[in-house]
């Protein structure tokens, strides 16, 4: 029993990492209907910027987080400006393929620049483990879990309660009509990328700190799984990213714990296929018919 509870905690902690990445994914998709495959790479860049800030400037976690978020936000805006904006009028598949290209460009650029080796992340927080009888949980696990929830709520508030959020939703519904209403569509989309990328950057720093390892490939598989989490929860829906992330994390953990550790990744991809077949709009998604 206690080991089952522990596995649930393990799953929640892994799931909140996926959720952290999935939030940015799903928000960008929600606004401009683009699956930004470079999102996992922005997550990786965030981790590296955080690493460099702590390593070379000798600062604590909070300044490192801020610098990493700012750098990731800037990168997100640049990617959007250079790679996606010129293609906004093209078909969706063009933008998707470009996103894959951008993802590989960043990944391989970093391999070229910093080398492919893993590096340990400077341990700026001592990881305390709290033993609660039935299970134990570490301080960084709590931080990641807390951050994911706070960010989810904050995003939800930004999108649904602020003027910028209203503009974002307007652009999401009909960019041209939004423009006619005096909304600067380019600004709104830049803002969306900024927000999503800053989230990814923060996630990268926390994950680097949690596992004490970063490398240029670190964004690839988590990015893919976060994408599946977003689809599972209902892509474009912010609480769906959280739900999907936690479900994927729990599934993976339970497969390893009570099934076969070899099937871990396979099961996640089977979920993707099943959800696309059975309920493509995701758990929280509403099935809407597109108007012609």
């Amino acid at each position, binding site marked *: 029993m206690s080991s089952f509870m522990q596995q649930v905690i393990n799953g929640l902690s892994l799931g909140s990492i996926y959720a952290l990445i999935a939030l940015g994914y799903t928000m960008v998709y929600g606004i401009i209907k683009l699956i930004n495959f470079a999102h996992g790479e922005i997550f990786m860049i965030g981790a590296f910027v955080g690493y460099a800030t702590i390593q070379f400037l000798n600062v604590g976690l909070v300044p490192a987080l801020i610098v990493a978020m700012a750098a990731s936000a800037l990168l997100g805006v640049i990617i959007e400006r250079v790679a996606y904006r010129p293609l906004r009028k093209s078909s969706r598949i063009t933008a998707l393929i470009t996103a894959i290209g951008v993802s590989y460009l960043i990944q391989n650029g970093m391999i070229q620049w910093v080398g492919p080796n893993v590096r340990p992340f400077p341990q700026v927080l001592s990881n305390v483990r709290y033993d609660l009888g039935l299970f134990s949980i570490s301080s960084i696990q709590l931080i990641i879990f807390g951050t994911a929830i706070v960010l989810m709520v904050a995003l939800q508030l930004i999108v649904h309660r602020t003027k910028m959020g209203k503009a974002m939703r307007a652009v999401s519904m009909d960019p041209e009509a939004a423009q006619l209403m005096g909304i600067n569509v380019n600004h709104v989309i830049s803002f969306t990328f900024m927000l999503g990328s800053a989230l990814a950057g923060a996630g990268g720093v926390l994950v680097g700190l949690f*596992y004490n390892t970063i490398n240029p490939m*670190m964004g690839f598989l988590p990015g893919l799984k976060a994408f599946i989490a977003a689809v599972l929860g209902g892509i474009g829906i912010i609480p769906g990213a959280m739900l999907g992330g936690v479900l994927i994390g729990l599934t993976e953990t339970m497969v*390893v714990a009570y099934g076969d550790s070899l099937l871990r990744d396979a099961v996640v991809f089977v979920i993707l296929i099943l959800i696309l077949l059975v309920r493509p709009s995701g758990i929280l998604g509403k099935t809407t018919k597109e108007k012609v």
Partner: protein
Amino acid sequence: MTKKRWFMGITASAAMLLAACSAESVEEGSSEETDTINIAGIFEQSGPVAAYGTSELNGVQLAVEEINEAGGVNGKEFELTDYDTQSEETEAAQLATRAASEGAHVLVGPATSGAAMAAAPSAAAASVPLVSPSATADQVTVGEDGEVTPYVFRTSFKDSFQGIALANFADNELGAEKAVILGDNSSDYGVGLAEAFTGEFDGEIVATENFTAGDTDFSAVLTSLADQEFDVLFVPGYYEEAGLIIRQAREMGIDQPILGPDGFGNEQLVELAGAENVTDVYYSAHYTSEGDNPNVSEFVSAFEESYGSEPDMFAALAYDTVYLVADAVEGLDEVTPEAIRDALREVEDFEGVTGTFSFDDFHNPVKSAIVVELENGEEVNFTEVQPE
């Protein structure tokens, strides 16, 4: 500008013609006597595993310099030509052919098993011996038919020997009766080691779990392992994941000894795991700079003088490889690649910095492994595990 380019074009094609001619003439002459003994260092000098290749090239260079300073072998100097495989296996195969056609008597390298296996057919086709310092996969020197690959040798012990040595170590030194294995199943290395360990270990293997390269979260698998009763945790894999496994296991309260292969042998292991977690951790190594072997201390100080850092096991194995070739060449009247190959087979009790050895029928050195014990991230103990 255009003129210049035109001129350069002519020179380039002329140079290519010349190169083609000279390559041909060397190819014909490669089995004849030359004034030097040509060593081709085929190494991963760039790309993902450049760390291994560059370290080995340093070891080779140092040995060649030393041998030449001492007057060479049989009055002939060693001449080293280095080739960069860029960590690509196909490149390794092409470079082996090229090096042979450029007159190499012996090919040293590449560092990794995959590249060595890719280069082996080229070496065989050109009838030039290839000695890899660190290709540890069993298949490197044995073909699919179970016959020895005639032109390939290695200076390191092979993977299955490591698995066997570690199982013996767990049996005899740790007195373990129950073991669990958490292995990297995405590499031949991890799979082969797990198999060899399972076959040799006298006690019971309570559980075998797997991970793949690049994994970072081992909490689920470690939580289920923590429920088992066992005396030792064997982690056949590389330091990238092993460091994280050690950390997460210790934080979870798994305090049994953790045993690993030479893939643990990187200073990053301790940094990834956190020094306070690396206690009661053991791994097999090819070489140790500790101990009272005078050859080793001479090598370490010479290496430090040349490169400003302590040699790692790759440098040590590569250094031994060149001396091994020198040892083989010494008794030869006529230096040809074939003669060197035959002489390598006959090498007996070669004393290197990585141990004293002869070759078995499958071109594997029969040497002992060193099991290093880590305590708080520091190497505290060395146990020699003898070959069968």
